[in-house]
């Protein structure tokens, strides 16, 4: 028996919604924590109170944001168990490990040091506090590392095998999971996206202060840091996004084909479609504008290898479904007689296609005797929503290039000390505020929605992973989340706007905003 299809739909909707919501707070936490570390480092080097105040002020906004990040993150950890119980059983032996390590290495670091970050300013030495701030940033980054290792495993499962005795995937090589290229590329791509978000946040709000003619010294310094750090990070995001694309091309060919709206296999090197309108039912992409060679170069790093189109990949999937049926048949035999050596050999030979066999479960209980039509439907199920992937991917990439340009200009202006001169630039910086979030959410859609129909790529279909719940349960939990999350979003935005409006000039004393070094340190007083 399988979970009802509306339970699966609602569970997917709930997970997707709560994950997207959580991901509104994560990038800013990643970026701001690191910026706080940089600002406080400057304070410890120059002893100018304004840098301490910068750390404290951006720290207040960081605190408002991080409370929501913490509150919405635990929801996801719980949901694996509550809504995806079969998934949890099926891959817990593997997937649980990075999740537990995230708790051990990251959450404790972050949660323990955040208290003393806020409460410790006058209780511990400058150096100790600086260390605390960096530990906080390290905690956030470790957290991203482990969760992306876990996520990368869902995209590209390695280092595990199916054990028919326990009916689940079991770990055999943790190093290949940890050092998976997909995980590394994803981690660096995501964390630099977080740095971009933090930098743009600081840039935009500082631009607001400059436009209002308030907190000039404070805003200029903040912008300088944000511009330099943001430029480096934006370059990283795009370069490592490209690396991510290359690896996806190796491991998730269907996702790449869908992102490109590419139905037919193109002769090498494949062109990159800049704009087009994919049509899922007719299997064509219309009104395309293409750049020759580019996709072939990105996806295969060569001029000779083809990039497979969706139609060819569906044909490949059809063969894998057939192999999956053999595996399923062998598995059924083993459930009756675990000592059946011949069945075990068949299972081993077709082990990597069990998941494709399970795709048939939607259409028939008798997987072994599926009809050609059912096999055909299962093969076509492996195609994700092409139109959505095509466009979300393009919006993300466009944002990425825009960030490089924006930070490059900001960096140039800050070098020439002309940041406050061009009001048009300040307006652009201010109005760009929502873009990193847009890009991050789009990137998330490409990665996760593009993984469908799999919960673990090629291993377990999403509909198999859900818990046996009732729709009533789902409606109650969904309403609970909608109500709480909406209320909290209102509160959080209100507090953010309130504290940005108050600004450093109203929250701190003039002496705390001084650009001259503290007296005890006998340094020369030229301003940074």
């Amino acid at each position, binding site marked *: *028996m399988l979970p009802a299809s509306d339970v699966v739909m609602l569970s997917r909707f709930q997970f997707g919604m709560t994950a997207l919501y959580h991901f509104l707070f994560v990038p800013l936490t990643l970026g701001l924590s690191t910026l706080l570390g940089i600002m406080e480092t400057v304070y410890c080097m120059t002893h100018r109170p304004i840098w301490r105040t910068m750390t*404290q002020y951006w720290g207040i906004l960081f605190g*408002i944001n991080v*409370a*929501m990040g*913490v*509150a*919405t993150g*635990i*929801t996801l950890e*719980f949901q*694996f*168990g*509550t809504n995806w*119980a*079969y998934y*949890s*059983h099926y891959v*817990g*032996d*593997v*997937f*649980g*490990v990075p*999740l*537990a*390590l995230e*708790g*051990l290495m990251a*959450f*404790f*670091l972050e*949660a*323990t*040091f955040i*208290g*003393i970050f806020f409460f*410790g300013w*006058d209780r*511990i030495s400058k150096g100790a506090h600086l260390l605390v701030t960096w530990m906080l940033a390290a905690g956030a980054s470790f957290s991203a590392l482990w969760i992306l290792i876990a996520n990368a495993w869902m995209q590209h499962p390695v280092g595990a095998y199916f*054990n028919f005795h*326990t009916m689940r995937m*079991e*770990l*055999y090589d943790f190093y290949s999971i940890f050092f998976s290229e997909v995980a590394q590329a994803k981690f660096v791509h995501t964390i630099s996206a977080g740095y971009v978000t933090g930098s743009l946040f600081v840039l935009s709000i500082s631009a607001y202060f400059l436009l209002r003619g308030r907190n000039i010294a404070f805003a200029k310094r903040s912008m300088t840091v944000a511009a330099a750090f943001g430029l480096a990070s934006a370059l990283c995001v795009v370069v490592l996004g490209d690396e991510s694309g290359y690896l996806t091309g190796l491991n998730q060919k269907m996702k790449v084909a869908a992102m490109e709206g590419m139905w037919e296999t193109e002769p090498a090197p494949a062109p990159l479609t800049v704009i087009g309108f994919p049509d899922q039912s007719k299997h064509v992409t219309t009104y395309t504008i293409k750049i020759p060679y580019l996709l072939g170069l990105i996806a295969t790093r060569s001029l000779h290898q083809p990039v497979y189109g969706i139609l060819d990949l569906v044909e490949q999937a059809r063969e894998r479904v057939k192999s999956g049926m053999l595996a399923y048949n062998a598995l059924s035999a083993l*459930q009756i007689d675990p000592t059946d050596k011949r069945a075990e050999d068949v299972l081993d030979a077709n082990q990597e296609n069990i998941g494709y066999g399970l795709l048939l479960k939607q259409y028939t209980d008798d997987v072994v005797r599926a009809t050609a039509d059912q096999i055909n439907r299962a093969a076509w199920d492996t195609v994700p929503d092409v139109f959505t992937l095509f466009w979300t991917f393009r919006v993300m990439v466009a944002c990425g290039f825009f960030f490089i340009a924006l930070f490059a200009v900001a960096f140039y202006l800050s070098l020439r000390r002309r940041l406050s001169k061009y009001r048009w630039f300040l307006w652009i910086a201010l109005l760009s505020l929502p873009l990193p979030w847009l890009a991050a959410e789009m990137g998330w859609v490409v990665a996760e929605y593009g993984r469908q129909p799999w919960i673990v790529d090629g291993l377990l279909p999403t509909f198999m992973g859900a*818990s*046996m*719940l009732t729709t009533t*349960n789902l409606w*109650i*939990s969904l309403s*609970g989340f909608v109500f*709480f999350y909406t209320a*909290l979003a209102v*509160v959080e935005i209100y*507090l953010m706007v309130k*504290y940005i409006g108050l600004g450093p000039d109203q*929250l*701190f004393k003039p002496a705390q905003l001084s650009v001259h070094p503290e007296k005890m340190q006998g340094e020369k007083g030229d301003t940074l």
Partner: protein
Amino acid sequence: MMDIETLRFIWWVLLGVLLIGFAVTDGFDFGASMLLPLVAKNETERRIVLNAIGPFWEGNQVWIILGAGAIFAAWPFVYAVAFSGFYLLMLLLLLTMGISRPVSFKYRSKLPNHFWRRFWDQIVFIGGFFPALIFGILVGNVLTGVPFYFDENLRIFYSGSFWDLFRPFTLWCGLTSIAMLVMHGGLYLAIKTEPPIRERAIVWSRWAAVILILFFAIGGFWVAQGLTGYELGSPIDHAGFSNPLHKQVLPKVGAWLHNYTLYPLSMLAPALGFIGALGALLTANFGNSRFAFFCSSLSVMGVIATVGVSMFPFILPSSTNLASSLLVWDASSSRLTLLFMLVAVAIFLPIILLYTSWVYHALRGKVSRHTIDQDEHSAY
């Protein structure tokens, strides 16, 4: 290298260690949150109570996040069954402890508005009261058994209703949990605050200790005389594959007391629960109440260990399909995962304890009117 039987036993102990770590640390801030409306009479006093736990609750809460992660990795069956079976109760836990609580601490004092602050005070209370109650009810349900079963593909089916989770015994466990954490939180406040908050906290803490002793004793009597426990009805391979369908289980009233005759040393667990609470009761106002807090920590440890020890080797019994019950011997991860995780815990847990104690040390001392004024910008 360690065999899987040993690893399973170690991970059973570690499960207890993580839950005890959670109850001893986060437990005191749940307790302090529940005491907020009872011991603080005005705004300054409320801020003192909140700031006594302010820098610590977040680190404490990680124990349960780590606990859940460790159950996921080491006991995937337990994770999958417990979280999906207790669906709506888990949701309530999530909404109160997981979502509202962090926000209530962080946002409460961000605005001076009276109604704003009073509103978040209610949420702080709810964020302490509900988790304490829910965890107690969950433990009660684990003791009585949960109506779930597996099919041949090990897919989990929960056949009970939401209201089945609330029965006299499970509610009794919920109240015991509240008493225990009020005692614990009260003594923490006694250490961190000055009179008159300190005095009020001690009074509440003592009452709670008395109630805990009574409830724990009656609960024990209940388990011995009225409650159906479970025992193995067939031999089980301690080193076998983790598949819960290869054994027989029998229900029996009083079965949860077997281990105490089998291994008399296990009597230490309930004894610690009683002696710790008694010690906390008697020494609550000695010196700076540090010793009483130590006693209360021992009591928390003893009470939780009692549950684990009574049920061993059961972790999560099924009340409707007995053979589906989850045991230490058939619900774990593979050997490699257990080993890998053990190495990780052995390296990182000491480091965590080290920096956590440094933070507690750096922020030691009482929270007073004076410190609240001093920390105007950073205080809760």
